[in-house]
């Protein structure tokens, strides 16, 4: 096995372990929450007898460890279990929520990557100039606005006041009516675009001042080529890792944005499942979110190795 492959193998194993830890942790946390699905289902009619009946009907009277082992056994067969609330399979919940969230996430990344790289390079080129200073101030300001507030503001201005865009995605299909995605994507990119573009800017400035860029210039390579082909890859490595780190943040951003614009995706499913103490659904979500985060970090490390192989000493 080549050293590269074994490194990837080690990373994958580590990722698998991390996912398992996340799942175990989430199960323990949900168990530690006050009340269970029976209590949440009973709501404002907490008739003790009814709660006991629900509990028995849902098998919640069995010990937690037993239920967890059952679930793990099911997982190994690819069975994520069934929801306590509706009795429908958890995989159905995931499939239902995945579409809108994946669409939202891809649209976000599609806008986020070129925009933040472009802004970063632009600022680095005009270092200290009025454009750089304006963009710096702007990104800092936008970054300090919470998504919720920004979402309400954007929906009010562009949706209700100007009437340019639909203020929510209520009852609309994002595939046939992509306009409903514009405001949610704007909210989602608002913060990562700030952090990543500032990072790209800083690394670009450093790289442009480095000896190898000076050497490239002496060879007579054109300014654009030096910038995009020689200096930028240096910035992309940390940017990719920063992007992976913002993944978990993006997931929580998705929750806010989905609630605010009424997009029935994974975030909404997760929130509802936690409120209903629907443990199997929460566990299924934890697996998905854990795997996504691990994969994103793995991907970022691979990208970092590709663009700046020296960074391997860190990994």
């Amino acid at each position, binding site marked *: 096995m080549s050293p590269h492959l074994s490194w990837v193998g080690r990373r994958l194993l580590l990722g698998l372990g991390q996912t398992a830890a996340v799942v175990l942790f989430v199960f323990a946390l949900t168990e530690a929450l006050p009340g269970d699905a029976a209590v949440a*289902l009973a709501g404002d009619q907490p008739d003790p007898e009814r709660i006991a*009946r629900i509990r028995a009907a849902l098998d919640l009277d069995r010990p937690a460890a037993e239920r967890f082992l059952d679930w793990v056994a099911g997982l190994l067969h690819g069975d994520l279990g069934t929801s306590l609330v509706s009795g429908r399979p958890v995989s159905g919940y995931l499939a239902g929520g995945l579409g809108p969230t994946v669409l939202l996430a891809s649209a976000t990344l599609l806008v986020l990557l070129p925009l933040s790289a472009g802004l970063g390079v632009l600022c680095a080129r005009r270092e200290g100039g009025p454009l750089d200073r304006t963009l710096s101030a702007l990104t800092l300001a936008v970054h300090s606005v919470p998504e919720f507030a920004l979402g*309400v*503001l954007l929906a009010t201005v562009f949706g209700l006041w100007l009437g340019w865009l*639909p*203020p929510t995605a209520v*009852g609309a299909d994002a595939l046939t009516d992509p306009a409903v995605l514009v405001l949610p994507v704007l909210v989602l990119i608002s913060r990562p675009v700030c952090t990543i573009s500032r990072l790209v800017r800083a690394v670009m400035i450093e790289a442009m001042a480095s000896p190898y860029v000076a050497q490239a210039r002496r060879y007579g390579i054109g300014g654009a080529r030096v910038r995009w082909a020689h200096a930028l890859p240096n910035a992309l490595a940390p940017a990719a890792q920063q992007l992976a780190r913002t993944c978990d943040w993006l997931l929580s951003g998705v929750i806010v944005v989905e609630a605010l*614009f*009424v997009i029935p995706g994974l975030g909404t499913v997760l929130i509802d499942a936690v409120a209903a103490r629907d443990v199997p*659904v929460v566990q299924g979500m934890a697996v998905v979110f854990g795997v996504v985060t691990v994969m994103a970090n793995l991907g970022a490390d691979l990208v970092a190795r590709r663009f700046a192989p020296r960074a391997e000493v860190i990994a």
Partner: protein
Amino acid sequence: MNSPRSGLARRGFLLATATATAAALALTAGCAGDTGKNADAKNGAAAGSPQRGGTLRAAFPGGGAGETLDPHAANLFVDAARAKALYDKLADFGADLAPVPRLAERWEPNETLDTWKVTLRKAAFHDGRPVTAEDVLYSYRRIADPKGTFRAKASLEPIDLAAGRALDASTVEFKLKRPYAEFPNVLAAFGAYIVPKDTTSFDKPVGSGPFTFGSFTPGKSLVVKRNDAYWEGAPHLDQVEFVVATEESARVSALLGGQVQYAHELSPATARTHEGKGQVQVVRLPGSSMQGFVMKTDRPPFNDPRVRQAFFLIADRKELVDGALSGAGEVGNDLFGKGYQYYPAGLPQRTRDLDRARALLKEAGAENLKVTLDTAPAATGFVEAAGIFKEQAAKAGVTVEVKVGNKDTYWKDILDNGTFASYRSGSMPIESHISQRLLTGSTTNATKWKQKDFDDLYQQAQSTRDEKERAALYERMQRRLYDEGGFLIWGFADWIVATAPAVRGVDAKAPANTLDWARFDKLWLA
């Protein structure tokens, strides 16, 4: 290293939120002002006879991907509204919470009030089958299944369903376990819908309601279509789509942006912002929700009636309504069901009297009293009301310590634990309030009011045929509660819905969950 940074971040968050909200309010106010006049003019011109056709989209807070169309599993407002579109009950509640016949044309008891004959009207399910006595018995037995967990099960408890039988296709005979004059309340109970015999799957629900099933995506949308054969006459609308939007701001935006024409459950602040501007019509449904505190009457300090009376006198009800409900409601008089059938409207309105409260506390040996008030963001205004009452109590020398709990488990947490807690109730007949919460055997007796003589009064009322005599008995029970009960009921909140200006036919008097609430078959688009 972390804490100063997060402190700064939080300050940024607060500032930004405040700015954004203020800006948003200013903007919406501005834009409403522009169109206000036109919309008002349109309103006046088009109010007239109902028009047929059109699709109405209604936004409700929902239950997520776990939602089901099983009408017996209904738990939320959106469940009730959807069930009402697809199904019927034998009876439903009018605006005064007295039962109104629906699928049942009439009902009559025997001499002893423990056998009731219910005659069904001519009605058909969406697939053409007639609604029969067998369907009724099947539905009720399904709800009351000993292994089942449906919410209406508790309401159906007085019926001996094994002994119930179909006298003919349209007559059901219900045998009760004891005399029960208020039996029609059971027929109207939350979730007691009639489904066709032997129904077990609700993927493509068949009911007898004003709309037929179109399509359903849990947590997202339900489309229903006009049922031309509906027994009460076909609805005006061609189609209704129920969409789920749990964030209030999303429901308001969708309504203002024209994406929905009906938004359920708005906050008083939102209603005030948009009311009278012509962009939306705000409808306040009075008496929909009782607001109060429960005092556990079986443990100190509230096992002394003088302490409970002192607490009644501490509350400044106007201040609570203005503060916790933003003024959207009216003051309470420590009794449930203001405006409902059997409510004793003649009792004097209780007002604040700190001197008398102090004297009562002193008499009870409870000076410098300290109590913990359990609350949680489980309903609008809970935490605010707790804070306001804390200050009011301080003026009478009582220290109230507010403890904010978990909203998902709140109702179970306060049922048996603690001594003093925030409380709320939706609309139901006064009889149901008493039987579910105030009898020794009640399943959700949060005040632990267990009084033999009170139980006897209730049983006596249920075996009294004459309505006047019964009303007198209800008044005696309520006087007792007014004097020394455990419910400190300080207000009744309006339920706020808003519609697009073109929507007509919304009943402005029906409390939430009564017959004329969320009646989409009665709405039309002008």
